[in-house]
């Protein structure tokens, strides 16, 4: 056996491993909100012939190459910063910055969106569940209030401020809190699934009518729903591949983001194994959970019921707001503790993106500031709390701004921001993966992922597959009647384009300003020839 000989030196320690990467990414993927979206939007007749299982499986297959691209990049360059590092080195710093800028701007937006989810889907449902359990109309009305734009925005604002304060007092405090909450949320989801599994559509329908009747005032709420829908009521249609592909946008909202650990890559040594297992592993694990929870939800309520519930305008039948799968599960039981566990655990899932997006934003802001692409003040670390105070405050303020925009402007109450992340960031990173083995030959060859198939770098092959996959997802977004972005309603296309192009403008403007102060930004990235 060929053994190498180590000197006595510092730094030979173990750090965050595959398990940690896995937990971090699963946390970010957000299984429960994924299932909630899938059943709120997929069966409601917008995709006739859709098969939820096949759509989820196809989405997993389509995004797997992107997950592997990020994992291999993280192995080759175990640095924090994600595509800012990868694309900068694979292509040019300009493109790395633009990819990072694009992702970060949408990250600011998605600090606000999950904050809105807490009120809109989490607390609103919890209050209504408790209102029904205790026979309290006031609590049910409070639930309705939390789902209004004002309730959503105010709840979200408080949540963002709480998380900003937590982060100001250190990431460590967040980690302690999040570990506990993640366990509660996961156990709650499992209990929710078991509760759903115990019922059939017949028993579920009776339980739902009993539950909903207390606030709709109707003896048979479901019949009122189908009557209200009339000829638009959902009926099962033969399988349609195109519609199933288009509907991938919904599982994509969660499965497309198994890459969160790329942004903390510098903390993960032995990155090869950790990232290669942690990123695709979390994707496949979450995908299986989506399929399992989808199965039990369909088992309990059936496709038509869920479709009609999603299709009806809630106000038309005194529903207030559309129940998610979690609230439907809570409607199946009279045990108050079970209702509490289901309701609270789902509420904990609703905002899971928020803290990780704050972390991603602050880290990206720090990286830009150190490279002279953002004011130096942003990179300052507070001595008392050891946290980047300014970066956290900037992220929180922008997140709150986007939260109110999301709550009050229906144009932004869609998933169209994901389109920008797909096209402006993941696609560019895929291109970076294709060229990296050739533009950074030494770095690639010296990396633990210098694998080849028939002489072609595996990273390049995955880059091609990832680019194709992202192109397919982009196509799905543009053809999805519920994504909020299409050629027939091009406003959000312009917004996405504007965010992307503004990255170029910002880069060159900053370069000009710095040049006037005698700083050549290009020097920050220029590689010195070693020979």
């Amino acid at each position, binding site marked *: 056996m060929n053994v*190498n000989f180590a000197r006595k030196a510092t*730094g030979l320690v173990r750090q965050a*491993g595959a398990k*940690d990467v896995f937990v971090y990414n699963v946390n970010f993927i957000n299984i429960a909100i994924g299932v909630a979206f899938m059943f709120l939007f997929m069966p409601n007749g917008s995709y006739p012939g859709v098969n939820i299982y096949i759509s989820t499986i196809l989405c997993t297959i389509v995004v797997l190459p992107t997950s592997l691209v990020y994992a291999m990049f993280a192995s080759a360059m175990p640095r924090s910063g994600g595509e800012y590092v990868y694309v900068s080195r694979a292509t040019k710093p300009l493109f790395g910055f633009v990819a990072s800028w694009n992702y970060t701007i949408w990250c600011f937006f998605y600090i606000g969106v999950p904050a809105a989810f807490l009120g809109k889907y989490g607390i609103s449902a919890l209050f209504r569940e408790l209102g029904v359990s205790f026979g309290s109309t006031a609590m049910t009305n409070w639930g309705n209030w939390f789902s209004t734009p004002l309730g959503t925005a105010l709840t979200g604002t408080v949540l963002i401020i709480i998380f900003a304060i937590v982060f100001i007092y250190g990431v460590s405090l967040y980690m302690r809190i999040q570990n506990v909450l993640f366990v509660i949320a996961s156990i709650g989801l499992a209990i929710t699934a078991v509760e759903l599994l115990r019922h059939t559509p017949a028993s579920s329908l009776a339980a739902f009518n009993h539950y909903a009747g207390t606030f709709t005032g109707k003896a048979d709420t479901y019949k009122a729903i189908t009557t209200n829908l009339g000829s638009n009521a959902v009926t099962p249609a033969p399988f349609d591949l195109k519609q199933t592909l288009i509907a991938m946008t919904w599982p994509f909202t969660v499965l497309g983001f198994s890459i969160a650990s790329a942004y903390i890559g510098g903390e993960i040594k032995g990155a090869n194994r950790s990232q290669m297992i942690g990123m695709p592993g979390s994707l496949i694990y979450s995908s299986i959970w989506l399929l399992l929870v989808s199965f039990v939800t369909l088992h309990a309520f059936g496709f038509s019921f869920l479709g009609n519930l999603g299709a009806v305008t809630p106000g038309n039948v005194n529903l207030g707001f559309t129940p998610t799968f979690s609230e439907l599960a809570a409607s199946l039981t009279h045990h108050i503790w079970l209702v509490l566990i289901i309701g609270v655990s789902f509420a904990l899932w609703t905002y899971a993106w928020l803290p990780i997006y704050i972390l991603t934003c602050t880290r990206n802001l720090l990286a830009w500031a150190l490279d002279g692409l953002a004011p130096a003040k942003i990179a300052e670390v507070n001595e008392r709390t050891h946290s980047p105070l300014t970066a956290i405050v900037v992220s929180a303020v922008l997140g709150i701004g986007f939260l109110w925009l999301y709550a009050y402007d229906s144009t932004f109450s869609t998933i169209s921001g994901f389109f920008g992340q797909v096209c402006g960031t993941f696609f560019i990173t895929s291109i970076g993966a294709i060229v990296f083995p050739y533009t950074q030959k030494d770095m690639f060859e010296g990396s633990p992922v210098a694998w080849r198939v028939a002489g072609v770098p595996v990273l390049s092959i995955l880059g091609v597959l990832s680019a194709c996959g992202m192109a397919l997802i982009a196509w799905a977004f543009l053809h999805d009647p519920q994504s909020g972005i299409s050629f027939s309603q091009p406003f959000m296309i312009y917004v996405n384009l504007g965010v992307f192009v503004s990255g170029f403008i910002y880069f060159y403007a900053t370069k000009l300003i710095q040049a006037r102060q005698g700083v050549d930004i290009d*020097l920050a990235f*220029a590689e010195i020839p070693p020979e």
Partner: protein
Amino acid sequence: MSAPYKLFYASDIHGSEKCFLKFINAGKFYKANALVLGGDICGKMVVPLIDRGGRWEARFLGRDFVAQTPAECAEIEKNIRMNGFYPVILSPEEHAHFHENEAARTEMIDRVVLAAMKRWIGIAEERLRGTGIRCFMNAGNDDDGYIDEALRQSDVVENHDGGVTDLTDEVQMAVCGYSNTTPFDSPREMAEPQLEAHIETILAKLKSPRDAVFTLHVPPYNTGIDAAPMLENGKVVTRGGHTVMNPVGSTAVRNVIERYQPMVALHGHIHESRGTKQIGRTLCINPGSEYSEGVLRGVLVTFKGTKLVGHQLVQA
């Protein structure tokens, strides 16, 4: 009126020949007056190429490498050096001997590291002689004592560890490669009181500490540029997938910076804490390190007279 003086500072290249060659070339590339390599120059691992009679085998970066010709062997040696390791050709018997005998192994590692250092000094002399670019290199806590002597023998590379040197008529540089104690018992460590006394001895040689550049390998305590992973029983502490960071800089270094308020303080030691920190009038800089990927992280510091006029973190 004096002309601007530009200094390029990097640290912690840990044996990466690619980073070293970039460092030597940085003077011309950035049009710098001086190059400063602030410690932790030596690598951490010797990689044997086992000679099996015209066939050489090595294993590094988690992969097996086999050379069938001397040219291929030389290519693998170069690859090993570029990645921060030291190649050594051994017979299977020699390899087994060093594997089993710690004393012989240590002696062999020291010999290989010293030879590599002398080779680097030779490259520096060849590329920098006559250019007018001054080159300062000092050991850090990870570098053994024999490195100092090798550095002092050069007429191009200057080693002022434990002392001071004139950069210009008005600005001097004080150099200390020692760190506070670490969990790793590395070659150059001191307890905080001893470290503070040692630095004080060095600073006493300065004409004007306020106008000086401090090159102190370890960063000041609790400044954000000294955040390293928290360790428990040799294992990094993680929560929720995140590494828990804590300040590990030196209180001694912080004390002397607060006391003397130099123009700028240059540090290294903590690779993952790239950044800057203002302590009073002193700008403290840790450019970080990415030696393992062959990326040279550094900082360009420009001063005019005794006034700091700019700095820029770079990754070459």
